[in-house]
């Protein structure tokens, strides 16, 4: 008798587990970027209450660790149901070419998304064969952050060109302030792309990635020289800092400026509770006013997703107006949807939305928009060669070698 009860119990437990639906979302939004994702998941759970969401996050800014874990899983034949991927070459050049993604054109048509997402953005996530992911946000890479009050105390104006920056650099150093704070490896590359954009201008910058401008061209070599001058104004403990800790240096008044994507605004507003425009200020990174270096996070549907139906519902939520306006104000990004309700966004994001609508747009290298991932990951080596030798020529030659080796632009 007792056995029977036990058996019945075991069976019922087993059945209840089996009947619950699951959905596994993979991203690198842990910690400070977590609340935004949580908001999106809550919205999903409210609409699909019988689905248990497994929020698999792997920490590490820009996905430096997450990409290794994700690829291992994809290779292992155990894809998550949906994963975060940067729109652009990271999506197309890595996953789509390897036939790992499902075409979502039908979903875009069904949801009417072809009309609400900007055409340029849809181009970034499309090939001739289809549309491959659902963008959830728009981030800007070329933003410089500071605390207005501190700048006043130090007697420094916000530089609009790198020349101006170099002028205030020594004055700041004289006062014991780090002029520009950088963090671990990828944040240094992040700074480079803003410097390169300023030095080359948007046209030539874009030509680098299409293969129309050689990395050994004198103008590109000059960007490395300029970059070296800028790096002389940075902290010497960079490699030990995450991007948030670098931002903290600015907030705490140890450093004057920081060039970082506008997820830094999400961190400062959502996590640190600062008032945009009052406790912290921003400007386009020097020499890039009027240009919006864009990157976009998106979610895709991998081939062989174990819970395909749930994943498709998830993508519907990700692309919905409600989903985007729940996610983005917390994340510190703007919604890609053109019909987004700007009233729900803070002062910084409203200005970013305005710039996005009016500025010239270019793609980010470090965040997977502009160049294929094989180039991007080797670019770390190029940076290392530059930091090692301090030679602009060596860095330029190495970059050109990587471009040839990875067939950049083809």
């Amino acid at each position: 008798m007792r056995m029977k009860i036990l058996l019945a119990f075991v069976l019922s437990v087993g059945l209840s587990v089996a009947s619950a639906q699951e959905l596994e979302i993979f991203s690198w939004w842990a910690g400070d970027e977590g609340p935004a994702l949580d908001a999106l998941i809550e919205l999903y759970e409210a609409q699909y209450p019988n689905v248990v969401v497994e929020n698999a996050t792997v920490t590490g800014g820009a996905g430096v660790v997450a990409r290794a874990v994700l690829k291992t899983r994809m290779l292992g034949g155990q894809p998550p149901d949906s994963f975060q991927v940067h729109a652009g070459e990271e999506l197309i050049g890595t996953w789509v070419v390897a036939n790992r993604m499902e075409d979502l054109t039908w979903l875009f048509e069904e949801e009417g998304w072809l009309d609400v997402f900007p055409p340029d953005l849809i181009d970034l996530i499309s090939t001739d064969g289809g549309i491959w992911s659902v963008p959830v946000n728009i981030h800007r890479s070329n933003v410089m952050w500071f605390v207005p009050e501190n700048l006043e105390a130090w007697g420094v104006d916000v530089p609009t060109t790198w020349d101006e920056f170099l002028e205030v650099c020594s004055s700041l150093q004289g006062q014991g302030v780090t002029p520009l704070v950088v963090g671990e490896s990828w944040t240094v590359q992040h700074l480079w792309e803003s410097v390169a954009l300023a030095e080359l201008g948007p046209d030539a910058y874009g030509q680098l990635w299409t293969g129309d401008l050689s990395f050994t061209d004198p103008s590109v070599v000059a960007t490395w020289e300029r970059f070296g001058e800028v790096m002389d104004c940075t902290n010497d403990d960079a490699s030990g800092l995450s991007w948030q800790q670098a931002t903290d240096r600015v907030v705490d008044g140890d450093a004057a400026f920081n060039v970082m994507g506008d997820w830094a605004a999400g961190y400062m507003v959502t996590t640190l509770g600062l008032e945009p425009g009052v406790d912290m200020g921003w400007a386009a990174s020097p020499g890039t006013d009027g240009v919006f270096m864009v990157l976009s996070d998106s979610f895709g549907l991998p081939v062989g997703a174990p819970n395909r139906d749930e994943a498709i519902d998830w993508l519907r939520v990700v692309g919905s107006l409600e989903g985007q306006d729940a996610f983005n104000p917390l994340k510190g990004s703007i919604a890609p949807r053109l019909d987004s309700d700007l009233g729900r966004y803070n002062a910084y994001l409203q200005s970013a939305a305005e710039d996005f609508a009016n500025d010239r747009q270019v793609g980010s290298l470090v965040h997977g928009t502009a160049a294929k991932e094989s180039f991007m990951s080797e670019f770390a080596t190029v940076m290392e060669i530059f930091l090692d030798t301090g030679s602009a020529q060596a860095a330029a030659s190495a970059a050109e070698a990587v471009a040839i080796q990875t067939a950049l632009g083809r």
Partner: protein
Amino acid sequence: MTNRRRPVSTRWIVYLVLVLGALFFLLPVYLVVVTAFKAPADIRLATAWHLPETWHPQSFVIAWEAFAPKLRNSMVLAVSATAIAAVLGSLNGYVLSKWRFRGANVIFPLMLFGMFIPYQAILIPLFGFLRDIGLYGTLQGLVLTHVVYGLPITTLIFRNFYAEIPDEMLEAGKIDGAGFFGLYWWIVFPLSVSGFVVVVIWQFTQIWNEFLFAVTLTRSATEPITVALAQLAGGEAVRWNLPMAGAILAALPTLIIYVVLGRYFIRGLLAGSVKG
């Protein structure tokens, strides 16, 4: 110099060395504990060594919530992989020490080499193999991996251990009519208890602490504690209270074993250097 006893003057040098050494080993422990008990807002680099102003145990609660499933994974993994490798190692050691056969002198070093290889050299095929048999991302796959790569050391320890059992005892057993398994079950196994303790402690510790296989062969639902800790501590804006509390949780099981069964632990450690 007629004083054959150690000169008094060197005594304080010896103690100085020991106390300085103890400081070197214990300073990090102190820092970990005080950091783990601080409230996140109280953690400042400049006052890292100060005692917490208010003791804040909540970090352990948060870390425990995040880590409980991972600790469970590690426990399941370490216990089952250790048990299987110990039993197989015991049988292998018995064969290699008491049923020596032609070629054993070649086979044994070939087996031992398996415990020294850098596992990177087998990682790509191992990954593909586990995927092909459907065990990638599962704890079973990781158990299988640890069993196989644990075989050399367990075999080695048992082989050396059984070499101490006099052959005459087995001969006497044979005369009584005992076969391969009879001899093992009635004579060898009962004498192996401390051998098992050594092997179990050693393997448990090794597997609990392993990272490379864990990070490559699991997914988030099956990852062991080392991977979870590396996740918690790496990358993002680190509030150091959580990684420190997590480090304590991750370290406790092997530390307890070490403190309680230190004697056997050291024997395992000596056995690890082949000759012992």
